[in-house]
């Protein structure tokens, strides 16, 4: 039956619909390339969404926890093998995504008799300056794109993702303090959750740095951190204005 091309296309279409439906419950994750480094934020009920991958690399993802874990492990393994066999400088997102992760996701998506990987993710690579940072949006089917604006989010609804991204880019300037970035991020998150339109949304007068009943998880790929490892966790509510 699936040997027939149209049936295969049908099955793929159903699979895409199924994955999108399953991802609806996921909450968005964010990445911001700033002069201090790359800020990654995830908000939820205690389940981790932001992870260290390698010395200058991090991941923020939404989706099924088991699938996030599979992608995280695959990325960590590929990065460490490359770093050990060559050098830490040779671990780049472009190679990691193109040769290791994207192909894995695409294969998983198209093998219709095996369970799909239900993940929407952002990968970040810290450069010497914010202009050299790399942010990549990776989808469940292996499709991915490189974001050059320095602001990126992943959400299960592409239209809302686009609207929130545009609002954040419009309201954040390159040298805004981290407090403002964090506040804008949580404001956008809240608007996405409440299904509010971004056209009327404005930044709060008092910085919004925590959300009642939610766990705000943040990490910074810190540009100024001494040594090889640049990843450190961050408590947004302790950021100073």
């Amino acid at each position, binding site marked *: 039956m699936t040997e027939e091309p149209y049936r295969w296309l049908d099955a793929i279409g159903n699979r895409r619909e199924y994955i999108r439906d399953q991802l609806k419950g996921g909450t968005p994750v964010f990445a911001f390339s700033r002069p201090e480094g790359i800020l990654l934020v995830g908000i939820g009920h205690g389940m981790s969404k932001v*992870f260290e991958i*390698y010395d200058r690399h991090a991941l923020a993802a939404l989706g099924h926890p088991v699938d996030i874990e599979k992608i995280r492990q695959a990325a*960590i393994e590929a990065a460490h*093998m490359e770093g*050990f*066999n060559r050098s830490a400088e040779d671990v780049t997102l472009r190679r990691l995504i193109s040769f290791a992760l994207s192909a894995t996701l695409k294969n998983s998506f198209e093998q219709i008799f095996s369970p799909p990987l239900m993940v929407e993710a952002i990968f970040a690579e810290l450069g010497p300056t914010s202009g050299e940072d790399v942010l990549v949006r990776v989808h469940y089917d292996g499709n991915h794109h490189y974001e050059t604006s320095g602001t990126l989010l992943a959400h299960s609804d592409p239209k809302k993702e686009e609207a929130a991204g545009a609002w954040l880019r419009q309201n954040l300037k390159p040298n805004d303090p981290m407090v403002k970035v964090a506040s804008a991020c949580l404001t956008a998150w809240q608007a996405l959750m409440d299904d509010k339109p971004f056209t009327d949304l404005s930044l709060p007068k008092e910085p919004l740095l925590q959300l009642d009943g939610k766990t705000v998880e943040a990490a910074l790929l810190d540009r100024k951190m001494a040594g090889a*490892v640049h990843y450190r966790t961050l408590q947004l509510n302790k950021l100073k204005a």
Partner: protein
Amino acid sequence: MNGDFLALLPKNPFAQLPAASASAHVPLQATTVFAFHCAEGVIIAGDHRATAGNTVFSDKTEKILELDSHSLMAIAGVPATAFEMARTLQTTFEFYRRSQLQGMSLQAKIRALSKLLRDNLPGTLQGFGVVAPIFAGVDTTDRESKPAIYFYDPLGAQFEAAEYAGSGSGSGSIKAVLHFLEKWGKPRPSEMSLAQATVLANRLLMTAAEFDTATGGVHPERQLFATLKLLSQDGIRTISIGDQDRCWQEASA
């Protein structure tokens, strides 16, 4: 998934070195390294000299290697093998921490080095790959715990050093002085401030260099000092040449 980088490695091997033969090759050696407790933590130090037979191969060798934020390895023996062991451990510790979302325990780190030494048994027996390292680490899960010093024999047996440890051809005289000072010194090395311990470490290496041609590279008058690191609960601090010079000048005044 058990966070074991060494289990992952054979699945994706890089070009391996051809099997070595025990020919008339003169192995490169690195000496001398030592560690002792001071009031602020553990001082771990080494000279800069690498030799091949009676030839000075380099006077700029770094023998104190940071494995992660809270563990160090001082190498004595064949640098090619020792550097590779350090690199393997660096990746192993970070791989475990990142993949398992928790740091490796101090005991596991100590055993990891022991296992690498045991796996190097053929090289050790043939004489071209002997490594006798010192390991210093601290348990980060217990803020009250103090840094520990371990020394190893080339076959992988590990021993905790209560006060000090030394390795390499120049370590005999250093251990003798440290034993004397720990027993009758005022202050004892374990009671010394960082400044006092810095001066002591350099003096020990200069003493070792008097009796061992394979130890060298410490000449305060030429601003050449030991590689010196302090390990404490706060992590690793490298004592810079400038700081060592200042301590040396103050002690000499």
